């Protein structure tokens, strides 16, 4: 189990860590968003310099994009290379492969945290009250939380035939629900309620001077989503074995 998990994570980094598209999504794309955020923030009473919540929220957009793109690329790769039936026949089944891939993707997505920070700090300077601890802990937690939620997409990609464009909506949807660029309270009512069940919104609440309860909720929800992903992969394994659901293309 552990060896397969580690191998899968290492494979993820070996194959995709230097992908130009991944770097573009993780760094360039969110920096453009940060430009939009800051231009609008300038109309309010916000600091003109880089704050921890802006930095983590911006990195979160990059993480979200990179994780979605990488989950799709990696698992479609496994399908095309016909490695999934071999994994299914191994003692650990598909779970360590999927979790290993997600683990590698989390590590890979972390580039968004320092990557966007350096770019934005160079442009705007760093606010004197920059909360370094919240930036670091919040950033890492945000990557884990995003990967646990997008893990559900991994199950969908494994279970169903891939349809071009089927994941495009996730970025917009999760960006709104994750409260990455504004606090949850600024979202319209129905969206705010939906945001409550996503761990990312609680991570962001903590980064924005929230209490320990926010971080506890974020960790709890992250674990819940990770457990749900494992259960769904087990269910998929059962469906493949009993009903001959095709895994590979």
């Amino acid at each position, binding site marked *: 189990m552990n060896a397969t998990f580690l191998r899968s994570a290492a494979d993820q980094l070996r194959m995709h860590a230097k992908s130009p598209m991944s770097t573009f999504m993780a760094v360039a794309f969110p920096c453009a968003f940060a430009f939009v955020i800051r231009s*609008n923030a300038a109309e309010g009473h916000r600091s003109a310099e880089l704050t921890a919540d802006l930095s983590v929220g911006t990195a979160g957009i990059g993480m979200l994009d990179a994780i979605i793109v990488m989950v799709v690329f990696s698992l479609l790769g496994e399908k095309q290379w016909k490695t999934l039936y071999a994994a299914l026949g191994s003692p650990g089944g598909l779970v360590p492969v999927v979790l290993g891939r997600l683990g590698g993707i989390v590590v890979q997505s972390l580039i968004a945290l320092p990557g966007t920070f350096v770019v934005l700090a160079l442009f705007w300077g760093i606010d004197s009250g920059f909360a370094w601890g919240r930036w670091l802990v919040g950033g890492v937690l945000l990557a884990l939380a995003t990967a646990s939620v997008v893990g559900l997409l991994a199950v969908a990609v494994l279970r169903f035939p891939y349809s071009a464009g089927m994941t495009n909506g996730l970025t917009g949807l999760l960006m*709104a629900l994750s409260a990455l660029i504004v606090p949850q309270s600024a979202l319209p009512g129905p969206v705010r309620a939906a945001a409550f069940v996503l761990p990312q919104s609680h991570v962001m609440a903590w980064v924005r001077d929230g209490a320990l309860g926010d971080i506890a909720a974020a960790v709890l929800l992250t674990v819940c989503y990770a457990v749900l992903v494992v259960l769904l992969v087990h269910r998929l394994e059962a469906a493949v074995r009993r009903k001959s659901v095709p895994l590979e293309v």
Partner: protein
Amino acid sequence: MTTVLRGALLSYKALFTWLNPLGYLSSRIVRPVGMAIAFISLSSYYGAAIGRMLIGSSLLAGAGAVIYGMALSVGNERSYGTLGTWLAAPQNKLAAACQRALPHIADGVFGGLWTYLACGLLYGEMPLGVLPFTGLLTLAVLTTAGFGLALSALALVVEDLFIGPNAAELVLMMLTGTLVPYDRLPGFLQPVSDVLPLTHIMAAVTDRLAGSGWNTRQLLTEAAVGAGWFVVSSCFLFWTVKRASHRTELA
């Protein structure tokens, strides 16, 4: 005319996997609304009026459908392994690219209007009536189609299908006054903004929301920008078709 429409619909049908409509729903229905919610919330959180951002996000939704659609309708020829055959065919490539743009223009109007209505209902505010907004949106997707033609041409020379439309979408988001007010752009970027589609529509919208009438000069300038892009993009397309036709490796 029937042949033109049939060809346009055939190209459009090839873009999404219609037996599984998730691709269309995800790209053209969910994504623009999600992005618009994020940006409108941003505007409202910082105390700005949400009307401008609602209109800007909805126009971007329409423009996005056009730029991705036009880039992919040509770029997918490479993915499907049919680029060589298409280039060898006697069909006029400029006419073909325009023909393929037609469904995306219609889809852009639909997507932009859907985004405007959905977000308008969600936030309980609709700064422009549906008819004037549809008129603006139609102008926006038409001028963006002139710009999108350059992306169709680019898809013939850049093998990574998504680099062109992704970069173009970022440019439209940042530099056209849709999400970032024109007067907040750095001075050296304002001339770039002036020659991009959507900029002059947003200028007209800003005037209108400030209580003035419709600034027809800005709207005519927008149409001229679209026409200018069409001419430049057509020349670019002729060059890229010529270049691609002389290459032996297309895949």
